C-alpha cells in the first residue's frame, strides 16, 4: 500500500488545493503573459543587436567626395585626390581610406546610368571610402576634418552618417527601454494574476485552512502548499507561453536577418537567405539564453506572490 512509505505521501493535498487553485485559468493567463514577455524580450534583444550593428558597421565608415580628382592639388605636388588620401591617412581615428575604382563606381551607379562605360563617369568626383577606427572620432573631429579637406582640395565633401547613426541609436535605445518597461508591466500583471488566483483559492478553502491552522499547521506550512501549487501552474504557463512565442520569434528573426547581418553586399545577402540555416542559428544567442528564463521567472513570480499573499492573509487568524 502506498501509505506504508516512510514519508508523507507525495502530493498529499491536505487543503484540497487541487480543485481550489484554478488549474486552467492560471496557467492560461500566465502563458499569455509569458508570450508577451517573449515578444518584449525579442524586441529588446533585436533593438540591442541592431544598435550594435549600426554602430559598428555604418557608423564606422564615411565617404569623401573629391570633385575633379585628377587636377593638381593647390600648393602641393600630386593630384587633389592623392592630397586628400594623404591627409586622411595622417588623421588619427581613421583606420583606412581607399578610392573606389571606376568599376565599383559604375556598379553603384548602374541603376541610374545603365550598363556599359559612360563618358559621364570621367567627370564624376572620386569617391573615397573611409573606415573609422574603433572607437570612431567624435562629430567635432569629423567636422574639423571636413574643413581641412575642403581647404586642401576645395569642393571636397565629407559625408558622415553620424547624425543618422545617432538618431537610429536613440531610436534603438528607446525601443529597448520600451521593451524593458513592457517586461516589467508583464511581470507585474503576472504577479497580480497569481495574487488574485491565490486569494480566490484562499477564500474557496477558507474552512479547510482554518481547520488545518487550528490543528497546529504553521503559516509556512500552509503558504508552502499554496506556493507549491502556484509554482507548478505558473511554470506550466511559462513553458506554454515561451513555446507558443517561438514560431513568432523565428518569423521575426528571419525578417530582421538582412538588417542584422551587417552592412550590405553579397555576403550579407547569402546569410540573410536564412532558410537554409539551422534552427539554433535562426535566433540571437541572447534570446536562446533568455527564453528558458521565462518559465523560471514565471515559477519565481508564482512562488513569491503566493507565499506573500498567503502569509499576509493568514495574519487574520490567531
Amino acid at each position: 500500500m502506498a501509505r506504508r512509505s516512510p514519508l508523507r505521501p507525495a502530493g498529499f493535498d491536505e487543503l484540497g488545493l487541487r480543485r481550489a487553485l484554478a488549474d486552467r485559468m492560471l496557467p492560461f493567463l500566465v502563458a499569455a503573459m509569458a508570450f508577451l514577455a517573449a515578444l518584449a524580450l525579442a524586441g529588446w534583444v533585436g533593438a540591442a543587436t541592431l544598435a550594435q550593428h549600426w554602430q559598428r558597421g555604418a557608423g564606422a565608415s564615411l565617404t569623401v567626395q573629391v570633385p575633379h580628382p585628377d587636377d593638381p592639388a593647390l600648393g602641393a605636388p600630386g593630384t587633389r585626390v592623392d592630397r586628400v588620401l594623404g591627409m586622411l591617412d595622417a588623421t588619427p581615428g581613421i583606420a583606412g581610406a581607399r578610392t573606389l575604382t571606376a568599376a565599383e563606381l559604375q556598379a553603384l551607379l548602374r541603376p541610374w546610368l545603365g550598363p556599359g562605360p559612360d563618358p559621364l563617369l570621367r567627370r564624376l568626383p572620386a569617391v573615397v571610402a573611409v573606415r573609422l577606427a574603433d572607437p570612431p572620432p567624435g562629430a567635432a573631429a569629423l567636422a574639423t576634418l571636413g574643413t581641412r579637406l575642403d581647404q586642401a582640395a576645395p569642393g571636397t565633401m565629407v559625408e558622415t552618417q553620424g547624425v543618422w547613426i545617432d538618431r537610429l541609436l536613440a531610436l534603438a535605445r528607446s525601443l529597448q527601454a520600451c521593451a524593458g518597461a513592457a517586461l516589467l508591466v508583464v511581470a507585474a500583471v503576472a504577479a497580480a494574476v497569481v495574487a488574485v488566483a491565490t486569494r480566490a483559492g484562499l477564500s474557496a478553502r477558507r474552512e479547510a485552512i482554518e481547520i488545518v491552522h487550528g490543528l497546529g499547521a504553521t503559516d509556512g506550512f500552509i503558504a508552502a502548499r499554496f506556493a507549491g501549487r502556484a509554482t507548478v501552474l505558473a511554470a506550466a504557463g511559462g513553458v506554454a507561453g515561451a513555446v507558443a512565442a517561438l514560431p513568432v520569434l523565428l518569423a521575426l528573426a528571419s525578417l530582421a536577418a538582412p538588417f542584422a547581418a551587417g552592412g550590405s553586399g553579397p555576403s550579407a545577402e547569402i546569410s540573410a537567405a536564412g532558410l537554409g540555416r539551422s534552427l539554433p542559428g535562426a535566433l540571437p544567442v541572447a534570446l536562446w539564453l533568455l527564453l528558458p528564463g521565462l518559465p523560471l521567472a514565471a515559477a519565481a513570480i508564482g512562488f513569491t506572490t503566493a507565499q506573500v499573499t498567503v502569509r499576509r492573509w493568514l495574519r487574520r487568524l490567531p
Partner: protein
Amino acid sequence: MLRFDAVGLHYATGATPGPDVLRDLSFHVPEGAFRWLLGPSGAGKTSLLRLMYLAARPTRGSLHVLGSDIVAAPRRALPGLRLRIGVVFQDFRLLGHLSAFDNVALPLRLAGRGEGQIHADVTEMLRWVGLAARSDAHPAELSGGEQQRVAIARAVIARPALLLADEPTGNLDEAQAERLLLLFRELNRLGTTVVVATHNEHLVARQPAPALRLDHGRLIEGGA
C-alpha cells in the same frame, strides 16, 4: 496547565467590540486533571474552550496554556502549542475532501510522523472507534455519530497533553457515549489533562469529577 486570571473575551463585530461573552474568569486546571465544563446553552462554554485551544486570545486578563503566556506569546509560538492540544469540536470540523483515514492522520502528518507509524496508529484508532470498515469513506458519507467518532479519533491520535471536547456525545448513543468517556478517563489516567463541555447531566452523574460551571459568561462554580 491552564491558568486563567481575570480573563475577559468579546468578539469583534466589524470595527466595534461586541458585548462581553466571558467576564472576569479566574481558575486553574492542574496538569493531569479532569474537568467538566457545564452551563446552559449560550453560557460561553465554546468560547471558553476556544481560548484554551488558542482559536482566540483573551481581550482582557492573562492566560497560561501548557505553561506558555498566551497573551504575551508571539503568533509564531502558537502552532507548536496547538500540536499538543487535541480538540473535539462541537461541529466536528472534518475536512470534507479527505477520507476518514486521512482526517484522523492529519495531526500526525502535521507533527511530521513517518507514514509507517501513521498507518499503524490510525488503523488501530479507527478500529477502536468502530470505523475500521469506513476508513476510506468521506465525511459526507458518514452518519452524524460516525463523523463525531472520526473527530474524536483525530483529537486523541497524537496523544495530546491537553484534550478539549465540546459536546462530544451529542450524536452518540448511550453505549457509545459510555465508551467515549472510558477513553477520556483512560487518557486522563495516562497523564492527559481533559476538559469536556456538555449538557448531558446523565454523563456527568455517572462520572463524578470537578466542574467549571458557566452562566452568562461568568464562572459560578470551580473558580480559584
